[in-house]
């Protein structure tokens, strides 16, 4: 497979996964923004911190203006990581590999692109219809996942797509978790209201699972247990790493080139760091440092992977 094509498939899925995470967090933040009673409310701060490169001062200003925050994250093209920009990049990737993806996948990406570029969108985002727009966009992400799964042939392309998707998911979960625990100083001993955790869990689509599987106390501890180590929760670090590793092994086995052994070792080490860990062990370096190491190592891995498989430009 051409390196450029592998690169495009990998990033098509990274961007689509990022869009999905972004929209879920925004929906949560948006609903919370109605709840002005909470003085120390979470609202737009995590989303602005994670998805933009604004300075703390700029975030301080923007987080108080619902419409402005929403528009900056979703449609502002000055924000190089806005939904509009990353969906455009996703579409460009898809367009450049049209002969490698199914017509259905292409049409779905195209549809999503036209949705975010709809002329009426900015106006709708500033009114009461904003939630309708966000829902429509989330729905489009869901369709993309389903269509990809049901139409794309398995094989090399599939492996690159999914490695992109699941490394992005690892990062999203780590980022979200870190942002929410930072607010409580990464302290498991205190007890936070479930309403606080509801936001994080909704952003990761894990609220219902939490209610079903975890007791109604010790939320600070239980939520961390779920988002990091629950092997049945599709957005837990554990699950995302498990899947990403599987696709990586497929890739390195079918494309053994110089550097693949190093790549396998690097990711294997990182995977073990998640797989054979638990909250008791983390207690030692602390959750903050633990998540920081994972994020940094994932970034380094992404760089190395790109150098080995995508270095065509």
């Amino acid at each position, binding site marked *: 497979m051409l390196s450029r094509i592998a690169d495009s498939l990998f990033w098509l899925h990274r961007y689509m996964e990022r869009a999905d995470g972004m929209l879920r967090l925004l929906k949560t933040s948006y609903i919370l923004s109605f709840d002005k009673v909470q003085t120390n409310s979470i609202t737009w701060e995590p989303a602005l911190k*994670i*998805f*933009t*490169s604004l300075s703390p001062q700029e975030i301080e200003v923007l987080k108080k203006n619902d419409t402005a925050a929403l528009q900056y994250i979703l449609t502002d093209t000055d924000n190089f990581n806005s939904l509009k920009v990353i969906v455009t*990049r996703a579409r460009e990737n898809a367009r450049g590999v049209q002969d490698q993806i199914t017509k259905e996948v292409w049409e779905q990406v195209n549809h999503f692109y036209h949705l975010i570029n709809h002329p009426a969108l900015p106006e709708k985002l500033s009114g009461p219809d904003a939630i309708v727009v966000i829902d429509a966009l989330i729905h489009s992400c869901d369709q993309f996942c389903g269509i990809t799964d049901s139409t794309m042939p398995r094989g090399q392309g599939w492996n690159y797509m999914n490695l992109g998707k699941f490394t992005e998911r690892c990062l999203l979960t780590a980022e979200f978790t870190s942002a929410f625990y930072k607010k409580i100083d990464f302290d498991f001993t205190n007890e936070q209201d479930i309403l606080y955790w509801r936001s994080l869990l909704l952003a990761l689509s894990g609220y219902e699972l939490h209610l079903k599987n975890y007791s109604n106390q010790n939320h600070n501890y239980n939520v961390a247990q779920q988002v990091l180590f629950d092997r049945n929760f599709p957005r837990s670090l554990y699950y995302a790493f498990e899947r990403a590793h599987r696709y990586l092994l497929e890739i390195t086995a079918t494309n053994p080139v110089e550097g693949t052994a190093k790549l396998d070792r690097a990711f294997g080490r990182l995977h073990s760091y998640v797989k054979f860990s638990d909250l008791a062990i983390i207690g030692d370096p602390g959750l903050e440092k633990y998540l920081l190491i994972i*994020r940094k190592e994932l970034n380094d891995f*992404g760089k190395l992977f*790109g150098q080995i498989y995508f270095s065509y430009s």
Partner: protein
Amino acid sequence: MSIFRIHHITKYEYDRPVKESVNNITIYPYQSADQETLQQELVITGNPDVFTYTDYWGNKEGTFNLLTPHREMVIESKLLIRTLALPDIQVPWDVFMPELDAVIGSDLQLLELARASPVKAVSVMYDYINQIAPANKNITQIIADTCDLIYTHFTYIKGITTIESTVDEILEKKAGVCQDFAHVMLELLRMMNIPARYVSGYICPNKNGMRGEGATHAWVEAYIPGYGWAGIDPTNNVWVTNTHVRLAVGRNFTSCSPVKGTFKGPARQSLSVYVSVGYEDGETFEELNSVQLQKQGENEVPEIIIDTFAGQQQQ
């Protein structure tokens, strides 16, 4: 007849590693009867295979590439060469324009080399041509007068023009280096319908001291029926004899550029050129030039720091 020892080093340095560099070199002596290459040794960073061929104008060219990352590329040429021309040129002073027109007739290369490129300052050029007053003069006289005019009206100043300066820019500054003098002269000759070509090479010092010594040099050749290509150097206002060594000829600098190349990677490059020319007996003249280069493509892209999540983007 003289023998010269020439040492020519072209050195590119990059502030970050670059890769996939592909280069074309035009630093082989021009193959003709009046100069004989006794020895040439080429040393290039990484010892790549150089593929050589002859181009449209009869120049020997070489192509090579460096695939792996590198921060420096040096092309070193050591040349021992004998020039066979007589110290006094034997150009005819009795050939006139109608004879030239007849010779150009259906000769493709002469036609191409007699075709002027559009300049904006047409009136300035015609003023110069009026001063030369080509009507009724023999061709050799026209060529000599054109050379003299440029030598008199243009000042030799280094560093105020670049390798990409146009004839219009040179006309405005009325100054430049050998390449600029040559370009103006080419244009004037062609506007008078005299075929003329650009020559790149080296100038070898004589007792009087000449401009362009110990560097790569450029001059002009004009076509005289019955004689052929006559070399003339507007920078020094002399006919070319046995102290000029030719590397390449062409329509202009672009087709004779000694080294040109491309590479990949967001790096800034700097170029220095060292040339020394000596008589076989040991007297040597040398010079080191740093050359201002245009930035290549997207060299300005800063290294992207990816320690934030939002900063993680497809490169």
